[in-house]
């Protein structure tokens, strides 16, 4: 009655949420790979899209459990910071879901010359997410050292720059094609959605850095 369930600890809950967001990213990766193959039917893509939505929904639930677990042991400022980080992580899953559902609804397929680039962006983003998971874990295991050395956050930002370069290159090539402007803009919107995931991860890295600075000795 008076002891707290071990799973209700914020570190356990946030790890659980990150795992769910990661699962969503993995399913989104499968979706993009299937979508890049022209033979894949929209029915098959709809099934994969639903599985992305399901993963997003699971990540949503774990976010709510995490928020419930942020009890009185933590200072208000820490609770606020963790809520901001968790809601930002949830936005990663939301972006995946938006891309998957909208592309199915709009019967959109990324033009073939750009499929590889999009898969590369997602691959870099997944690498960024691994670094992000590690950083968040460090908040709960070695914050004292993390405050002094947070080079891992610079690595996340560096990867985001790579994504930015690829994104810029895609736009230049996309607007140089013979497609109609509407199609170009539609494709650009989906490119932006994928790149937004990397941006979201970078924003979380920034939030973590601010969190560390405010707790700097």
């Amino acid at each position: 009655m008076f002891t707290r369930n071990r799973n209700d600890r914020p570190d356990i809950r946030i790890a659980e949420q990150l795992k769910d967001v990661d699962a969503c990213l993995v399913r989104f990766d499968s979706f993009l790979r299937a979508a890049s193959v022209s033979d894949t039917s929209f029915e098959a893509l709809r099934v994969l899209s639903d599985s992305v939505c399901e993963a997003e929904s699971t990540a949503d639930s774990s976010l709510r459990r995490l928020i419930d677990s942020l009890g009185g042991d933590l200072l208000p400022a820490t609770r606020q910071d963790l809520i901001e980080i968790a809601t930002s992580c949830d936005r990663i899953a939301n972006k995946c879901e938006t891309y998957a559902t909208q592309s199915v609804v709009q019967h959109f397929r990324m033009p073939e010359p750009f499929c590889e680039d999009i898969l590369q962006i997602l691959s870099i983003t997944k690498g960024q997410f691994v670094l992000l998971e590690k950083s968040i874990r460090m908040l709960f295991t070695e914050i004292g050292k993390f405050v002094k050395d947070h080079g891992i956050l610079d690595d996340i930002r560096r990867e985001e720059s790579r994504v930015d370069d690829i994104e810029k290159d895609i736009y230049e090539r996309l607007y140089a094609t013979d497609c109609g402007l509407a199609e170009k803009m539609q494709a650009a919107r989906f490119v932006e959605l994928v790149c937004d995931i990397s941006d979201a991860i970078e924003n979380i890295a920034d939030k973590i850095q601010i969190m560390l600075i405010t707790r700097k000795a």
Partner: protein
Amino acid sequence: MIYLLLIPGLFMGWSLGTNDAANAFGTAVATRVVKYRTAILIIAVFCILGAILGGAGNIDKVAELAESNRVTASLSETLAAIEDGSAEALRLRSALKGAIIFLCAGLTVFVMSYLKFPVSANQSITGAIIGWGLYHANYSDPEVLAVNLPQIGKFAATWVLNPLGAGIISFVLVWLFNRFLYARISSLGAYDKLVRAGYIIAGIFASYSIGINSSANVTALYYDTHFAETGVVSNLLGDARLTATLGGIAIAIGVLTFSKRVMMTVGSSIAEISQTDGFLVILAMSLTIVIMGKWMGIPVSTSQAVVGAVIGAGLTRGVRQVHFGVFRRIAIAWISSPTVAGLATYAIAALTAGYFA
């Protein structure tokens, strides 16, 4: 009816509470580590406890200054009054003088608090006593000077030594903590627990120190130091512990009712300090009060100590972290509050010279 004259002293205590509370939990409340309501409850309880258990020890020091400035009656005056049957009139006059001085000092502190300056209530009282003495005591008399100059010198020295000492202690504590302990903190949870526990322990220590250091000051002028020798109470109160306890209660009421403004100034305006620095600052302030109080033999200003400590902690990160503009304004308030209180009592002493001569 004569006990109504206690009101200005209690008002002084209330004013001191509105100001000095900031020193115990200002940084904790400003950094949202401790809730304002929790902070003021802790201060009130431990301030009263400090007053009951250790406040009486400081009464004699203030009383000595008051007597040499002709605020309270000397032993010979008291004995003479007992002999000619005017002890009750002497009692009324002493209590009235105490009330005037407390009123002037209390109003000065209240105005400074309203303007959000952390000032020294203790030094306002000292300024008010000396202001009275400058009119009534003969400062050209070498004997009067011999009693007053060392006391005045000590109070003036604390303007510099107290914040300087607190700044040095704070700088060393913060540097040692950051250098050797910080990296050992494992998790956010451990960090938060350390910060919260640190603030509460340091705040309790600080509140207790304020109770010991300041409670006597707000009622000491009502205390009859010669009661033990004469057996007749020639002022309002004859019991040192009761006098200090009343002061502690008055301070606690000030803390509970009107302390938030200065608390936020102390906690956030003077220097950018981290959460861990915050409780080390309070610890440094409390240590300074105890050390300086013992060394100088007079009650010292907690407000000056905490401002010095905040600056010391800020300096561990570099000179740019300290808002010297705010510090300058506070320094002016430190000097002006005893001066204003002194001028006020001097003026009243001149106006009432016929009655009190």
